[in-house]
């Protein structure tokens, strides 16, 4: 149970309220938004972001940032895709191991640069964002992995009444919840983000924990890579993962995770992803071109930051008043 009790539940409830209000508002203009079919569309939009957001959440709670997850998704996806293409005999579930492994490795590299060289993670991941994207092009010779090479069983995971990718995404969310709230090392991540100076004094192995969160973020980004192949049926070195980091960060920030670290809940992030999914699904119905998506995500990040700040300000002011009266 994360601390910040009342304030927090208020935040998660607030997002849920926003989702409901938004859906009602859109539903009035376009009634088909409130159908099961539409809900399914929304659900299919979010698994990748949800998985990415779980990893990014841990990184941000630890007071870092990982901007490279989109490129990690691409690189992991393209390597896995090329494995399917050039080694067709390999059973397709091996693709999961490859994607997650590649992702974890890339994330680990981010962690090493941040801890060993004491570099700010934002600049490191800005560099690796480009580095990994470049590698994606190099490895694939700038060619996409076409539909016929992606195993049909894999593609089938995104179809059906209850698509497997949604199940996996939910499972990851539950796993992250267990990790963040109920394991010792998970709580150490929160402690580290809350007060990085005090952490070593309390026996927290700062470097180990930091390496771990970046590796997890990378691994989950890698998982989202093979999910991409499943969902869309192909992997393209240019498009796969493009803009992914911004969608994920938007969802995480909406979900109440504080940029300063130490604060954030899985439930909040899930709601944040859901809200973003609803917004994305509503755009075509409302006739807003897909090109507007970036603008909206940008606006969303800024608004979420403003809300985050005003909430903290009010909290600080309330504390000061309390103390004055005491």
């Amino acid at each position, binding site marked *: 149970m994360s601390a910040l009790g009342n304030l927090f539940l208020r935040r998660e409830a607030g997002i849920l309220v926003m989702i409901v209000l938004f859906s009602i508002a859109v539903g009035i203009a376009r009634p088909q938004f409130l159908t099961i079919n539409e809900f399914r569309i929304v659900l299919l939009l979010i698994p990748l972001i949800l998985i990415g957001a779980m990893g990014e959440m841990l990184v941000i709670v630890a007071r870092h*940032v990982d*901007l490279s997850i989109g490129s990690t998704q691409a690189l992991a996806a393209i390597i896995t895709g090329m494995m399917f293409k050039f080694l067709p005999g390999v059973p397709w579930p091996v693709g999961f191991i490859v994607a997650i492994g590649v992702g974890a490795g890339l994330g680990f590299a981010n962690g090493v*640069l941040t801890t060993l*060289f*004491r*570099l*700010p993670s*934002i*600049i*490191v991941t*800005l*560099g*690796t*964002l*480009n*580095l*990994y*994207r*470049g*590698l*994606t*092009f*190099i490895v694939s010779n*700038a060619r996409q992995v076409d539909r016929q090479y992606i195993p049909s069983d894999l593609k089938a995971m995104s179809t059906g009444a209850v698509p497997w990718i949604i199940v996996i995404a939910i499972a990851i969310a539950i796993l992250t919840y267990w990790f963040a709230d109920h394991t010792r090392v998970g709580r150490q991540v929160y402690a580290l983000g809350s007060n990085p100076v005090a952490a070593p004094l309390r026996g927290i192995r700062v470097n180990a924990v930091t390496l771990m969160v970046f590796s997890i973020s990378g691994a989950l980004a890698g998982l989202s890579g093979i999910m991409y192949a499943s969902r869309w049926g192909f992997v393209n*070195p240019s498009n796969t993962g493009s803009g992914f980091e*911004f969608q994920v*960060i938007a969802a995480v*920030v909406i979900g109440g995770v504080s*940029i300063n670290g130490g604060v954030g809940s899985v439930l909040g992030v899930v709601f944040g992803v859901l809200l973003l999914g609803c917004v994305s699904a509503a755009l075509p119905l409302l006739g807003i*071109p897909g*090109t*507007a*998506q*970036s*603008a*909206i*995500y*940008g*606006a969303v*990040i*800024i608004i979420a*930051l*403003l809300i985050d*700040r005003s909430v903290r300000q009010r909290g600080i002011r309330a504390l000061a008043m309390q103390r004055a009266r005491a």
Partner: protein
Amino acid sequence: MTDQTSATPVVTALDAATPRPRWQVILIRPETMTLILLVLAFVVSSLLSPYFLDINYILQSFTLTAEFSIVALVMTMIIIAGEIDLSPAANMALSACLFAWTFQATGSMPLALVVGIGAGVLMGVFNGLLVIGLQLPSIIVTIGTLTLYRGIAQIIAGDESIRLPEYFIGFNTWLIAGIPAPDLLFVVLSIGLGLVLGTTIYGRQIYQTGTNEIAAQHAGIRTRRLKMGLFITMGFVSAIAGIITASRLGSVRYDLGLGGELQMVLMAMLGGTYIFGGRGSILGTFLAAWLLSVISTGMTTANLLPATQLCVLGVLLIISIIATNFIYSRTQR
């Protein structure tokens, strides 16, 4: 049982550590590293291709990255002041889009210029308000605004290119005294900003704000005004850079300058700007801009894929920060 020992004073330390010798201060600094790298790059590139020994070739190739270089100068000042702005590339795109769109709609070049540059300034003001007025962390804010600005550009221009009138195209080919216009602009701006940063009180206060903002405020330096000025300048310069790029390309698309933020930050870092603020120089960024131009052109000449080039830039960014941090931490005591 009292135990009184007479208190003999402890040995006093030297009142100050001995300073580093003058020659060390002048020579051992990140700009030297940049200069060495620049010379090295020249040597390697000229081995790759004899074109590099031709000054005109070098000047011509520089025009490709001149726009980013110009913005990188202001970026350097912002980083020295302790902030960062990742939105200028998106600003370039949106300003250029609005500029082209206005021209297309009204046929009036002066009006288009006003709209384009005005939009850039407004974007700078917006960034400034969020960072300084509302005290949001500049890095996340400008990631948000970069997405926003790029997105709005996408809305306005869609997936199409907006063409510019013939007389406006080809800024990079205009020669003034035999030097391509963008290069000259860059050099002039470098000299100007270099003087501002190095000799004026404004420049001094930028360093002081970046070194210790609280101390600067206590000393009566108006840090908020200073930073706001920088963000607005960034907006202004980005808009101009965007319009120049449009002139070079002949048309405007929403993805103008995509990935530019990496190059600008890279130039600043390669030039020895300290990411945490308080240190850096226009000279360093100036040298780094040329360095990057040589590297980019060299890579293209060596037939490296754009993707590979991207890789190299990513690696360079990381290495340059490690090296700069290393140099700064060694010279501190």
